[in-house]
């Protein structure tokens, strides 16, 4: 490598990742790797019942067990005002149950012991006397007559209804439906799934008994916001809380909320005066922490005889579990579901939503998704394919007829979004070309002649990401800006500190690339730091594909600020007017005298050694960036499947993905993100299901029942790009982490529906397992 020039590593270069070095050698530092002197271990006792009144909790045997230091109950937490905590949706959630348990797996007590083994031994000795109550396991049941009241402790709560919410124009939509030639409808359930990062959630809470300072190592995607929430929950002074997110083994939204275990471990450390570690096992992760989706959706699309979309109606019933703990901005009760008009120029739309409490785990997180845009995208893309089948119009053609045209941007949707930029036909045409659409249609026709089931699925998703404009988007009132602090040292090397937090997205590489382009310091010379609230500027964290749109923008802006200071330094050193200086990456030269040059490294040194009169020393800055709008990545996915008519087994033959996320910082990393999302979308579409029996027992509580895709069944992916820059982002990027989880489920399911369409099958709820496909075929007399 020494003879080769070092890559500069600017925007657009697929440089290899900096963070790999430690991960490849087993030198990552994940939460469970944190070990402090005197550290205790905590295990949580969880409810076996979905709904039960607690008569008594007897901790005497557990307290007497070997190695046990303390047993924490809801009663003890209540004495400190910590039995309940606020959720990210402004509801309340039990930290440790005092009155009732409201879902299977709810936290009831915690044992703190000298070792994890001792804690696990003792937790089984806690005796809880339950009075079992009937369980509510669906929104339909929750609103039914005689449904048990789940949140009886909430003043004024007389039923299980949480919210009603509407968007769009009902009258205009009704009028358009009245004029329609055709109305196509779809009722479908986007099932409860779980982000299931390979690393579970955990905390090492270390409250210093002398200074009172709480150092909290946590698996948090949003360490600053969590610090503020902790200050509010626990009443600890915020300057005495330091949240450190070490390396995170995947997040996907699961590590955004505050979980009871975090609060109990912190309280235990405070009370005992020693560090306390709590790390979930996989079962706990799946049954108690932030699930995703669980939307029962109906959609109706009004069209004219020519296939022109006139209006859209959508309604959803959201199953929120026992506590309304969705992680989303306070103004959007149903998340960003009203992006449901998708990529289409639909003149009128009306969307309604109702949320319900059920006896299921709380925490509807946006699993690799920007606040419920996934469910919205799924509904419209399924509806459009069904409409194409019903109207007898090719599904690509129907989409092309109704896309928002490229010249219509910025485009205001019927539900009020201003889309920043897009070229949907370009992405569609590229996808059709790459997948060989015309040939596939011919092949499909031939196979149908022979009775074979082959399907082509399309989805042309549009996302809304990058929250957000602070005026519209917040978490518990905290505006969703983000930050970057750049410090350039005298030798021209730099440290960049971020308010966001990587969980595998490669920020340590890509954010250095932004500095490399904007300030000319090679990416290798920029160290990116993140995840420590004592050491980074305030930010709202990494989720909802927001890091590049917000903190990425902040990094560009702060780099440009320092570049302007460097310009003044160059003018001083070169004895030229700042206006006569020409910037090219990494250097200023005097216009017309290209040999009079100062490099950014020379200017960095000058910032500490040779300043003009009146200029402050140093080359450092911080920027808090509040974006003017969301960004709207988009794309078209094409999936080809073969379905066995005898067994219902679906084989995914091809997946072609065209993504447009604006300017790509590191195409290699972007493609890696898309691969991951296509795989998680594949799992949601075909294999993953968390469901409940009538007593509220969770089915899907371990990796033997909750089936994540392995290398064996996961298809290969063919990725392609179009580039339509965001007009308002400093360097035109839009964010990409979630595009494929948002866009791909509809493409997979549409492919199956397309394969089965000759038999009039219009819906199979996800996961589209072989038994569901088989049952659908059998119901139409196929394969008998």
């Amino acid at each position, binding site marked *: 490598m020494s003879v080769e020039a070092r890559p500069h590593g600017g925007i657009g270069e697929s440089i290899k990742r900096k963070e790999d070095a430690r991960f490849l*050698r087993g030198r990552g530092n994940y939460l469970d790797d944190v070990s402090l002197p005197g550290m205790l271990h905590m295990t949580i006792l969880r409810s076996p019942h979905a709904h039960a009144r607690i008569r008594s909790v007897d901790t005497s045997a557990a307290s007497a067990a070997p190695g046990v230091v303390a047993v924490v109950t809801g009663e003890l937490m209540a004495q400190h005002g910590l039995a309940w905590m606020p959720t990210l949706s402004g509801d309340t959630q039990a930290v440790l149950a005092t009155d009732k348990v409201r879902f299977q797996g709810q936290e009831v007590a915690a044992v703190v012991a000298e070792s994890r083994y001792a804690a696990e031994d003792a937790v089984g000795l806690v005796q809880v006397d339950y009075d079992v109550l009937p369980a509510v396991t669906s929104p339909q049941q929750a609103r039914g007559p005689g449904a048990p009241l789940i949140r009886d402790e909430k003043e004024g709560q007389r039923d299980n209804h949480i919210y009603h919410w509407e968007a769009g124009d009902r009258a205009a939509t009704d009028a358009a439906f009245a004029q329609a030639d055709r109305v196509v409808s779809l009722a479908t359930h986007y099932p409860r799934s779980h982000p299931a990062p390979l690393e579970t959630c955990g905390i090492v809470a270390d409250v210093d008994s002398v200074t009172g300072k709480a150092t909290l190592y946590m698996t948090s995607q949003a360490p600053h916001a969590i610090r503020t929430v902790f200050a509010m929950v626990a009443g600890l002074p915020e300057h005495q809380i330091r949240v450190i997110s070490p*390396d995170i083994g995947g997040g996907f939204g699961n590590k955004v909320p505050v979980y009871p275990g975090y609060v109990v471990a912190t309280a235990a450390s405070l009370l005992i005066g020693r560090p306390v570690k709590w790390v979930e096992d996989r079962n706990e992760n799946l049954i108690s922490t932030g699930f995703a989706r669980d939307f029962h959706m109906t959609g109706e699309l009004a069209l004219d005889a020519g296939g022109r979309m006139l209006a859209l109606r959508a309604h959803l019933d959201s199953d929120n579990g026992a506590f309304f703990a969705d992680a989303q901005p306070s103004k959007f009760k149903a998340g960003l579901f009203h992006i449901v008009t998708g990529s289409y120029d639909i003149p009128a739309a009306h969307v309604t939503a109702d949320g319900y409490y059920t006896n299921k785990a709380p925490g509807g997180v946006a699993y690799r998704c920007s606040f419920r845009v996934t469910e919205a995208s799924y509904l419209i893309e399924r509806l459009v394919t069904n409409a194409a089948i019903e109207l007898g119009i090719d599904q690509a053609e129907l989409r092309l007829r109704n896309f928002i045209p490229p010249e219509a941007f910025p485009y205001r949707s019927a539900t009020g979004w201003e889309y920043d930029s897009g070229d949907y036909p370009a992405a569609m045409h590229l996808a059709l070309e790459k997948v060989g659409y015309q040939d596939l249609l011919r092949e499909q026709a031939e196979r149908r002649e022979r009775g074979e089931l082959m399907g082509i699925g399309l989805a042309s998703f549009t996302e809304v990401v990058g929250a957000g404009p602070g005026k519209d988007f917040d978490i518990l009132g905290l505006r969703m800006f983000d930050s970057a602090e750049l410090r350039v040292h005298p030798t021209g090397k730099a440290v960049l500190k971020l308010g966001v937090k990587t969980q595998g997205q490669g920020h340590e590489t890509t954010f250095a690339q932004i500095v490399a382009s904007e300030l000319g310091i090679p990416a290798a010379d920029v160290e990116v730091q993140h995840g420590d609230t004592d050491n980074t500027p305030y930010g709202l964290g990494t989720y909802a594909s927001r890091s590049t749109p917000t903190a990425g923008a902040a990094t560009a802006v702060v780099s440009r600020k320092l570049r302007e200071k460097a310009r003044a330094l160059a003018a001083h050193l070169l004895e030229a007017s700042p206006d006569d200086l020409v910037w090219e990456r990494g250097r200023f030269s005097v216009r017309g005298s290209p040999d009079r040059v100062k490099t950014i490294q020379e200017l960095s040194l000058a910032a500490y050694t040779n300043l003009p009169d009146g200029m402050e020393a140093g080359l450092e800055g911080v920027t808090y960036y509040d974006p003017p709008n969301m960004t709207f990545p988009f794309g078209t996915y094409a999936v080809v499947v073969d379905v066995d008519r005898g067994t219902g087994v679906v084989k995914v033959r091809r997946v072609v993905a065209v993504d447009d996320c604006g300017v790509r910082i590191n195409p290699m990393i972007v493609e890696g993100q898309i691969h991951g999302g296509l795989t998680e979308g594949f799992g949601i579409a075909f294999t993953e299901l968390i469901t409940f029996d009538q007593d509220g027992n969770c089915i899907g509580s*371990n990796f033997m029942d909750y089936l994540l895709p392995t290398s064996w069944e996961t298809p290969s992916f063919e990725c392609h790009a179009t580039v339509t820059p965001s007009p308002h982002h400093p360097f035109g990027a839009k964010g990409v982490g979630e595009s494929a989880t948002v866009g791909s489920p509809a493409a997979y399911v549409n492919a199956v529906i397309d394969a089965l369409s000759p038999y009039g099958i219009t819906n199979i709820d996800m996961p589209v397992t072989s038994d569901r496909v088989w049952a659908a075929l059998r119901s139409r007399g196929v394969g008998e």
Partner: protein
Amino acid sequence: MNVTVDVNGQERSADVEPRLLLVDFIRDHLRLTGTHIGCDTSSCGACTVLLDGEPVKSCTMLAVQAGGHELTTVEGLARGAELDPVQVGFHEEHGLQCGFCTPGMLLVSAALLERNPQPSEADIRWAISGNICRCTGYVNIVKAVQHAAGLRAARAAAPTEQVTAGAPGGAE
């Protein structure tokens, strides 16, 4: 009980409870934290180590069962500054993102290449199918193992020359 294991070429001895899981022995007693815990049910493979060269899920073995055997963890893959070909392959082909599954993936890949130096894509997909990755979608892991196979072949052809191009964290 006393257990003595050859760990990455060093003899390590400890007095342990008979019920102690091998993964806890590795992580907590030996402080080799590159071996991870992902599921507790032998489903995910984050805890994979090599026992006498064969991949095992260390969450499903007792520490005492490893007594007298040779154990290789991810920390034992590189020879000093020289990375194993699978480590180079994963870096070059972007075969890792969050890094949590990576130690297990590296070890099953290294074991595969030991017994099958030129595996097909299906061979690789089958070999790693007991290890779950939530980030990469496996496509780049397959490429990484193929890349490593190529490096191994190159090293075998030129045994005196170190083939370490692109090793992350090395001198550039």
